[in-house]
């Protein structure tokens, strides 16, 4: 019986609590001097990988954190390692060449082969592009089973049971390793990295690579025509009591 070799891709995104602003040229969202952090769903992926190791139902041989992004993405790889990943791989991709989900999936396929991973845990979506595609694309390229929007993962021997969030409730799926899982918010509560662990993470191995090392380039299929602010809503009225609310709603045709 072989153990789990888990790959956890993480993405550096604008912090979830920051309200993004569209730049003047309407070409993108302003990212300079804006607080960035690990995509919240990716924190859940790391946490789940570490919990699988702690549960010991199937031995975890290794947890590798991976990111493709600008030089600063190494900060979130250090965070991942402080949370419990054993080492990191950073494919340095400048912001102007940033990859689309299909490009990331193609890159991850190569990394999975190279690292001999048998379980990839990804976030269900990144909170910047909101695409929700990479995990499924990777599963397709590898022809592996997939369980998206996982809220509970159990692994016994080589069998993975996943409870996933679907419209109207949950469903349970079962498959054999190797497998792709994407995480939903309900899956776990990510731990905070302690100071000693942050110090230890600085000594963990972090490999720097380029797209060229994997024989890929940043081919872009979707051209951004423009990025605009969403229409703003007109400020409404405050009413004094319930009667006021009912009559205002009637006036607006909502009742």
């Amino acid at each position, binding site marked *: 019986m072989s153990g789990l070799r888990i790959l956890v891709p993480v993405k550096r995104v604008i912090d979830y609590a920051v309200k993004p602003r569209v730049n003047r040229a309407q070409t993108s969202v302003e990212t300079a001097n804006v607080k960035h952090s690990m995509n919240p769903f990716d924190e859940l992926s790391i946490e789940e990988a570490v919990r699988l190791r702690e549960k010991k139902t199937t031995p975890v041989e290794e947890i590798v954190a991976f990111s493709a992004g600008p030089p600063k993405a190494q900060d979130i790889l250090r965070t991942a390692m402080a949370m419990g990943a054993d080492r990191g791989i950073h494919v340095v991709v400048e912001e102007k060449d940033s990859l689309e989900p299909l490009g990331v999936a193609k890159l991850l396929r190569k990394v999975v082969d190279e690292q001999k991973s048998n379980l990839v845990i990804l976030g269900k979506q990144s909170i910047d592009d909101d695409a929700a595609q990479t995990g499924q694309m990777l599963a397709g390229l590898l022809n592996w089973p997939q369980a998206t929007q996982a809220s509970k993962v159990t692994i016994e021997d080589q069998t993975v049971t996943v409870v996933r969030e679907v419209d109207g409730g949950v469903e349970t799926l079962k498959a054999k390793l190797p497998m792709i899982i994407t995480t939903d918010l309900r899956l776990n509560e990510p731990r905070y990295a302690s100071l000693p662990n942050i110090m230890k993470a600085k000594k963990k191995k972090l490999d720097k690579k380029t797209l060229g090392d994997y024989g890929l380039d940043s081919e872009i299929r979707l051209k951004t025509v423009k990025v605009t602010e969403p229409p703003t809503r007109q400020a*409404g*009225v405050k009413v004094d009591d319930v009667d006021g609310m009912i009559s205002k709603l009637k006036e607006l045709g909502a009742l």
Partner: protein
Amino acid sequence: MFAAARTSVLRSARAQLRQTQSHAACARLASTLAVLEAKEGKLNIASLAAITAGTKLGGSITAFVAGSGGKSIAEEAGKAKGIEKVIYVDNAAYDRGLAENWAPLLVENIKKGGYTHVLTGHSAFGKNLMPRVAALLDVQQISDITAIESEDTFVRPIYAGNAIMTVQSSDTTKIITVRGTAFPAPETEGGSATVEEGTDPKAECPTEWISEDLAKSDRPDLGSASKVVSGGRGLKSKDDFDKLMPPLADALGAAIGASRAAVDSGFADNSLQVGQTGKNVAPQLYLCAGISGAIQHLAGMKDSKVIAAINKDPDAPIFQVADVGLVGDLFDKVPELTEKLKQ
């Protein structure tokens, strides 16, 4: 140096190739495959949004259904206005919407039909399946579109709806998921599409479906309800949520939603969550109580026609988007509102 020159030559050659391809795509008429959802032999009406989106592209629309009783589902779907043809595959293997066998099934039928666009709803089904299909076809999917500008140009929200991005696709086949609230379902009567059996590659499915646990409710479906009442952390407990929200929902004939805080605290089921990572709703009336209005929640409801909010904090961000705001204790105001609405 030489390597760099070579890459750039390659790149420009490829760019040119892509341009000619996209011209060619413009020249031929759009032909759309709308992938519909069905469950236990019944069509999911909300999934017909893919047809509405298809009509905005011009050209022909073919619908696709699969599962046991595929033919009768196809006949039901064929009555929807706007479709020329429905392709069905009758095989119980597709009943659970598993991506592992659905993806090869769609790829076969897409290749056979030579469609320029493949559309489906941005639902749990569409989100799970379409990226896998896109990868198999080597296409960069476009998720959760809210508008169609042209045959190759689409509009979609990013950053939890805090920015709106317009993208132009250079792929020859466009794989797209559509936001249901942006494309209301067409009339489900009066159409007369022909029904035809599709190709079934009978791909093996390595994933086994074990069980499901769906919240049962007689109330309207959250995603498509015309009225939604929604509760947040301010409701304090599950008991209070269950005591206050269902009667208000019943008085209005509304669906019930919840904020992430309410779901995380166990007041409401996860499937009721409205927001960036939950459901997107755009009802005629969104009435919320005890919800502060975090970015992630607003992402899921700010396209509602009329927003009404009850909150005891006059500075809560929800009041910046609410058409009607009432500052007050929801434990007094919600029961009073429920009583007065019943009259």
